[in-house]
């Protein structure tokens, strides 16, 4: 069958059995909404995780006798180090004031032991800096003669990163399983649907149709159903995203810190279309291959 005739033949089947094709399209669409919904959540949660991931900071406790000139020179040296983004000085008075403000009282003299507090330098390093590099940086800073001790918030950060990594892997596995599950669901549904056209395949096979002739209408149907099923899914996801985005912006943006939620990327939309068309094609091709196995 020529491609044009295959296309026409497929369309005539859409006219003959509109509800069956509509049902197929909806099944594809529902499966793609599940997959696309996962993509959407994954994309925005990733964005959220990036936004809320903690800034790595460290504190260098200075020796008692360090002068202001030495502090300034030290700040310059530290700032020139790789991976350091910001360095700020806090005198013992500032530290005590901050602590008092935290505790809800005023007047440095009221805080017992406050005379033991040292001057400090607060360091901010690049986000996502691996633990090994933090350790190296810690070593360099602690070797400066003005520095008594260095402390980085890297222990719990390493835990945080590990958990994020595990969650990412779990997410990816779940996505893979979901795609597989949906594919089997669609393939089985399509298989059952095409089973009803088994007689048709059998007849054209008996009158001498070759593989291309038999399979061409199924390919066109797969493309059409997959395309429209995916389009429906994308429109549904866009509508859902718009609705939830405005809902979240109105109620939760202050907590989450993300005013605008992202829609799927072009690549993700393409993947949805590819999965949709592949699913639709799989059903037709599966039944055809099963039928071919049964025949001489």
């Amino acid at each position, binding site marked *: *069958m020529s491609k044009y005739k295959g296309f026409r033949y497929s369309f005539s089947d859409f006219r003959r059995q509109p509800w069956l094709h509509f049902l197929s399209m909806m099944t594809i669409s529902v499966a793609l909404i599940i997959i696309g919904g996962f993509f959407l959540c994954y994309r925005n949660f990733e964005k959220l995780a990036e936004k809320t991931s903690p800034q790595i900071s460290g504190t260098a406790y200075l020796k008692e006798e360090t002068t202001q000139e030495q502090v300034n020179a030290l700040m310059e040296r530290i700032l020139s180090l790789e991976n350091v983004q910001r360095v700020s000085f806090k005198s013992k008075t500032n530290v005590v004031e901050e602590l008092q403000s935290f505790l809800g009282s005023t007047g440095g003299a009221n805080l017992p032991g406050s005379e033991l507090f040292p001057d400090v330098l607060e360091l901010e390093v690049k986000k996502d800096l691996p633990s090994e590099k933090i350790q190296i940086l810690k070593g360099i800073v602690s070797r400066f003669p003005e520095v008594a001790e260095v402390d980085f918030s890297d222990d719990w950060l390493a835990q945080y990163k590990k958990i994020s990594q595990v969650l990412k892997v779990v997410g990816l596995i779940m996505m893979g399983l979901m795609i597989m599950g949906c594919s089997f669901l669609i393939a089985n549904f399509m298989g059952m649907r095409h089973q009803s056209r088994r007689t048709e395949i059998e*007849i054209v096979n*008996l*009158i001498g*149709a070759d593989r291309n002739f038999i399979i061409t209408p199924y390919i066109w149907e797969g493309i059409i159903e997959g395309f429209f099923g995916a389009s429906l899914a994308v429109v549904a996801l866009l509508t859902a995203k718009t609705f939830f985005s405005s809902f979240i912006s109105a109620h939760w943006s202050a907590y989450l810190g993300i005013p605008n939620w992202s829609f799927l990327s072009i690549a993700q939309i393409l993947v949805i279309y590819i999965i949709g068309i592949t699913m639709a094609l799989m059903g037709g091709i599966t039944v055809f291959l099963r039928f071919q196995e049964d025949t*001489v």
Partner: protein
Amino acid sequence: MSASLVRLNRVGLRYATDRYALQSVSFELQRGEFAYITGNNGAGKTTLLKMLFAMERASEGAILVNNRDLSSLHKSKVFQYRREVGFVFQDFKLLPDLTVYDNVSLPLEIRKMSPSEVDYRVRGVLSLVGLADRARDYPLTLSGGEQQRVAIARSIIGKPFLLLADEPTGNLDSETAREIMQLFLEINEMGTTVLIATHDKALMEEFPSRVISLNKGRVVSDHRMDV
């Protein structure tokens, strides 16, 4: 080249249960011949026709059709062979969603024939079977006899050298069956070799020809009926 179009040499079909559907069947059909295969239910008539149409494969012996050995016919070449042989089924096997015209034109569509050639041949063959005025109708709106005519038209439109028919009158009343048989004779007169499986003795007596009788998968007689 042999004058015989079909040659079966000790053909057998044994199932996994060791039961034989056909056993040591041998006969020849000459080009342009008209013959019947007869026998009771389960004698092996349909199995034999299926083998000749490459729907079943012989487990023993050799089948040569137009000098082509069917036992070595590759699965991927079966469709080419079926384009050269027509088959009329008892249950017609028409596509209910296609019109009479589209059902009949399907074998030519498969061959990628030009629309004008398709149209010319479909109109010609529908006239031959007496259904020129029913071209736009759907099979389910036709009588059994008319549906069988459509099936015959579809089977001969590709100009096959061999036409096989499995109980083509089995579902028809006697008058319609007679018309269908007349049609087969006309097709045979045009040069097509015809082999019909039937157990309708009255019909064979009315349209006498060579009769190959099967019983329990074996040929028990091969003779020509008297006119």
